[in-house]
């Protein structure tokens, strides 16, 4: 990555309060769209989809008084660029300790970009069973889709250029709560 230039924070798009409000709204939308929480299971995509999925689950429990099953998915073994990369990404554990057949599975990720991660996640998911419906919740949709995939729940739409990088930072992993937009510095420029 360093060969492509240094990343520099350009702007903060969401702070902790904005993230919280978005997740509260999305959790209400999930309940509203599905007319309740029956048959709903949440599955976060590693890494940052996992804490976001857990928070959605906590809000739904708070509003509906129902505990929704929560799982996590590592999509490394399903990536379509595995043989194109020079490194071998670490494989982490997937935890889906419940049956998803016939369920409404809400996939949760931090940023939706090309859609390739979601494609891989759906492939991984159907190895666990045959969901009734799969819905997609993301904190940030930054556009530039390369596959016919769209989100059902969006925290914030952020128009970006391909040179920019969106980084979602969460307390559980990063010790800070915000969404920033970063830009690659030209090689040699200070």
């Amino acid at each position, binding site marked *: 990555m360093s060969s492509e230039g240094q990343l520099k924070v350009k702007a903060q798009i969401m702070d902790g309060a904005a993230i919280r409000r978005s997740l509260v709204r999305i959790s209400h939308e999930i309940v509203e769209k599905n007319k309740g929480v029956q048959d709903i299971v949440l599955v976060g995509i590693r890494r940052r989809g996992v804490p976001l999925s857990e928070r959605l689950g906590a809000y739904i429990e708070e509003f509906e008084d129902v505990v929704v099953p929560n799982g996590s998915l*590592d999509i490394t073994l399903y990536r379509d660029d595995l043989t194109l990369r020079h*490194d071998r990404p670490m494989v982490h554990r997937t935890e889906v300790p419940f049956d998803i057949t016939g369920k409404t599975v809400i996939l949760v990720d931090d940023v939706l970009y090309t859609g390739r991660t979601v494609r891989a996640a759906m492939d991984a998911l159907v190895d666990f069973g045959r969901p009734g419906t799969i819905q997609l919740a993301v904190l940030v949709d930054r556009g530039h889709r390369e596959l016919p995939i769209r989100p059902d729940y969006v925290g914030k739409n952020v128009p970006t250029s391909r040179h920019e990088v969106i980084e979602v930072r969460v307390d559980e992993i990063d010790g800070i709560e915000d969404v920033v937009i970063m830009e690659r510095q030209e090689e040699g420029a200070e």
Partner: protein
Amino acid sequence: MPELARKDVLGLETMSRQEIELVLHTADSMREVLDRPITKVPALRGRTVLMMFYEPSTRTLASFNLACKNMSADTVSVSKSSSSLVKGESLRDTIQNLESMGADAVVMRHPSAGAPHYIARNIEGSVLNAGDGAHEHPTQGLLDLFTIEQHKGSLEGLKVAIVGDILHSRVARSNIWGLSTMGADVTICGPSTLIPPYVTEIGCTVTHDVREAVTDADVIYVLRIQLERQEGSMFPGAREYRRLFTIDAERISLASPDALLMHPGPMNRGVEITTDVADGAQSVILEQVPNGVAVRMALLYLLLGGGE
């Protein structure tokens, strides 16, 4: 990003602690794949693995085959009796021909120590040693480390007793290297004719008293008495061996109460281990088998997973 910075997996003697930790971490993720309704992931689609087994094998061959299929790699099997080896073709020529057909990796078992190393120097693809003579059996060693780690959390400081014919055992050798690298205290026990001198040099304790070896042990690793490899007068005879070294309920009771009992298989029940102990509560022998598939999936991913 931690990586296995090597082309081949030939032995645990040369594997660093960091590399072993990466393999065990990856194997833990692969273990979960084996619990799914569909145990196949697409990670190694389009990769081809050659299985060259020049010695009998049930477990290791089946385990490598399953691991390849679970990772979506294709396999081609060559055995000694059906290969051109019987027509006089050299091993190197055979493998170079097969590699030019497009194999990305070779899994090799061979009766001669060093055969996989020789192949590794002569081909571009990865070589995985599935047992070379009495030298090493690294994937067995790694699956044993993985099994212990799954139960004990860490290998550091564990007291491990390895009992049996150390001299002829590639499993013992790989385990001794791996366990020592990971910080376990290894005690070796067996007839004095079957203990090679190198073990004290690498820091193992040696005893010929099985009760002393297993006392307070966290892991008791029983080796198979390889009756087919015994020559001359090294082996004291099954009856004497039984009296002095067999792991039975009385001897296992001297170990730590939650000690694990392991055996690489195939077992000679009633010789190196009694049936009640082999099937008892402390035995993790049957767990070693699926763990072997997970460890081999991890190695295949770490060697073949990325691009070139």
